[in-house]
């Protein structure tokens, strides 16, 4: 099937919709296009395609456009849409699935900062089995290349405040008991996702 539109031409890829459907287990074929999800979404204003359209585009197999959309990165996983969708379509799970596929397929994220944040967030967990905020923050700053004097100053001030309030620890935390197992989960998941 070929879908033709003014700006782009893309051939619908049924294998893509099938894969997304299986991984996300979201039941997205049930969608009525009633727009309840979009009306419920607190961040839809910032998305290039509102959530209901992402559902439709996945049904049509418009892989390129979906993976390149900002929507999949902007979704805050707040679950407002799932709560209200008459068909119980798990859109956040769908969005997560689309992140994964985008990362694995090396599709540049339309909202790179969000992708970097996800990576920076996960790195300490993989290492220690728990969050290490200092590592996450620095990891994010490095990824996002936030080296301007203004960024450095802002972050230093905020960091100082948090340290004094004991919200941020400078020293690495103790690894949790099952840290090795957690790492195993990461590795296995990465392996499977490939």
């Amino acid at each position: 099937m070929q879908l033709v539109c003014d700006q782009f031409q893309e051939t619908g890829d049924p294998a893509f919709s099938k894969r997304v459907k299986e991984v996300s287990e979201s039941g997205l074929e049930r969608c009525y296009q009633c727009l309840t999800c979009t009306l419920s979404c607190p961040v839809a204003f910032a998305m290039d395609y509102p959530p209901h359209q992402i559902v439709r585009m996945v049904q049509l197999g418009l892989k390129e456009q979906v993976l390149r959309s900002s929507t999949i990165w902007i979704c805050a996983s707040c679950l407002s849409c799932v709560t209200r969708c008459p068909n119980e379509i798990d859109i956040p799970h769908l969005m997560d699935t689309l992140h994964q596929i985008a990362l694995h397929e090396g599709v540049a994220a339309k909202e790179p900062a969000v992708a970097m944040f996800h990576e920076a967030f996960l790195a300490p967990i993989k290492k220690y089995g728990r969050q290490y905020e200092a590592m996450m923050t620095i990891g994010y700053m490095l990824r996002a290349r936030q080296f301007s004097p203004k960024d450095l100053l802002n972050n230093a001030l905020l960091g100082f405040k948090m340290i004094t309030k004991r919200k941020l620890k400078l020293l690495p935390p103790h690894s949790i008991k099952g840290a090795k197992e957690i790492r195993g989960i990461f590795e296995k998941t990465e392996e499977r996702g490939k």
Partner: protein
Amino acid sequence: MEKRIGVFVCHCGLNIAGTVDVEQVVEAVKDYPDVVYAGNYIYMCSDPGQELVRTTIREQNLNGVVMSNCSPLMHEKTFRRVATKAGLNPYLLEIANIREDVSWPHENEKELATKKAISIVKMAIEKLKRNVELTPMVVPLHKRALVVGGGIAGITAALEIASAGYEVIVVEKLPYVGGHAAQLAGTFPTLDRVPCLMAPMIAKMISHPKIKVYTNAEVDEVSGYVGNFIVKIKTSPSYIDEGKCNNCGLCLEKCPVTCPSEFDCGLAERKAIYITPPETMSQKVLIDPGNCLHLNGDECRACEEICPTKAIDFLQQGITVEKTVGAIIVATGYGLWDKKNIPEYESDPDVIDGLQFERILSPSGPTGGDIRRPSDGKVPKQIVFISCCGSRDPEHGFTYCSRVCCMYIAKQAVLYSRTVPGGQAYVFYMDIRSDSKGYEEFVKSAMEEERVLYLRGRVSKLFRDGDKIKVWGSDTLSGKSVEISADLVIMATAMTPREGAIALARKLNVTVDAIGFLTEAHPKLQPVETLTTGIYLAGTVQWPRDIPDSIASTGGAVSKVLSMFSRKELLHEPTIAWPDEEVCSGCGICASVCTYNAIEIDPIKRVAKVNEAVCESCGACIASCPSGAMRHKNWNARQFMDMIDIATGAYV
């Protein structure tokens, strides 16, 4: 004879008495000429009310009664029964409607209402003075039914009536029964295979001792009236001596003529001599006179020469039988809008209609259940359905929705997806109409489990591109134009009136709507009756329906027939038209306006003659008669004039 009229004014609780001053009404008519009694009561229709009327008729020796209460539609029958019980001819009782005609519409004008009620009661009194005693006519009732059409609706009707113990005659135009349902591959939403549904029904009908089936037959003429229809049934010859034929099929091999098979919608061929399809549970050999060479003047006698039992009889004639039946059920079904109406689509062999796809999906169809496209026998990997072809499209076809296509598209897409692994079905639709038990769920399961892709939009263009058919359309849900390279395209063409429906309706004297479907007497209250008493509608002859709805409507028609047959005889209202032979000039204008064909001009006396059992008292003839010869019993011109005098007099 001295007139002794009684007037009974009902309060109907406050329904009447809340607006009309009933005491004043009684007062106003109690001394009216010929009135000997006037009284009121809270509920005349209640037991004590009826008793009051009955005893007053007796005690006052009344020979005329005016009941002033609700509409005659409500209680005319009740009070006429009371009159009969009291020994008064029921046609000497009149209703003055002071509820629907007075108290309800004039709720806020009490004075006016009372005045109007008095005048309506006086009108009834004046009319009553010229009423004569009448007795309902007893019409004989033949407890035998005719079912026209042997589709699933007709078969159901025949079986139901026969199982109640009455004789049934079934007339089917084709050489086999079963109708469209027999052609289907399966049925939504349960996907029952058709032979499992139809075979037992057909077998039971054919062998039922109370049912006589005429196939290859048509209703030639209908006359008479309810309880007494005389029908002429004409059969076409099969040119085969059924007693001799042993179904060996040798003739079929020898016949040199091939023509498209109607049952397979032109997707397979048959010979000019052929066997009826197995789905219809009949294995009859017959010759199609339109295609047979011999019957069209040629030398060929190939079948006759090969037939080992000498069963071929080119001289065979059809027969005409005449039967009297009490009721008729019309179940001649529907037709399909010809896809030729859209020439752009029609020219391609791989653009087919829904019924053709049923045949391709059918295990006993032309491809033996393999899904192969007509042009080259390839298994289609991408198929496209187009819904609403002709339906909901006043520009090209019809305004209405055909009601079954959304569902059969889902069914066909499911059957296809299950048979062709890796095949993809697409459906272009405007909206999905799945409004019966289990239907919505079925469509959803087609989307979810069989991954049928629904595209909400119309198709703009189809064209051949080598091996493929390019389908251009839109998906309004994503706002994108779509192009699909399809192997096969299925058009859900509109369900239309059956060819010949109008001619049949004329023979039966029933009405058709603007499209050509047969019409019911009332869209809500009389959905299976026609305007001709004794003729009922079943199934898709009336409107597009699926099988469950067709069967349900058939049940309604059958119950009407059975309730009629449960009576000993039929009674017909005597308040009908009658010609004054002294005045009638025999011009025949009345006969030409009578919708019910109740009037004939007596060829010897040259005057109009009304068939009393057929006249429905509509009054058309009376209005049309230029010499005023046609009269209405108990509604004559003098009565009208007297009533008008009162009506206008009250307001001058």
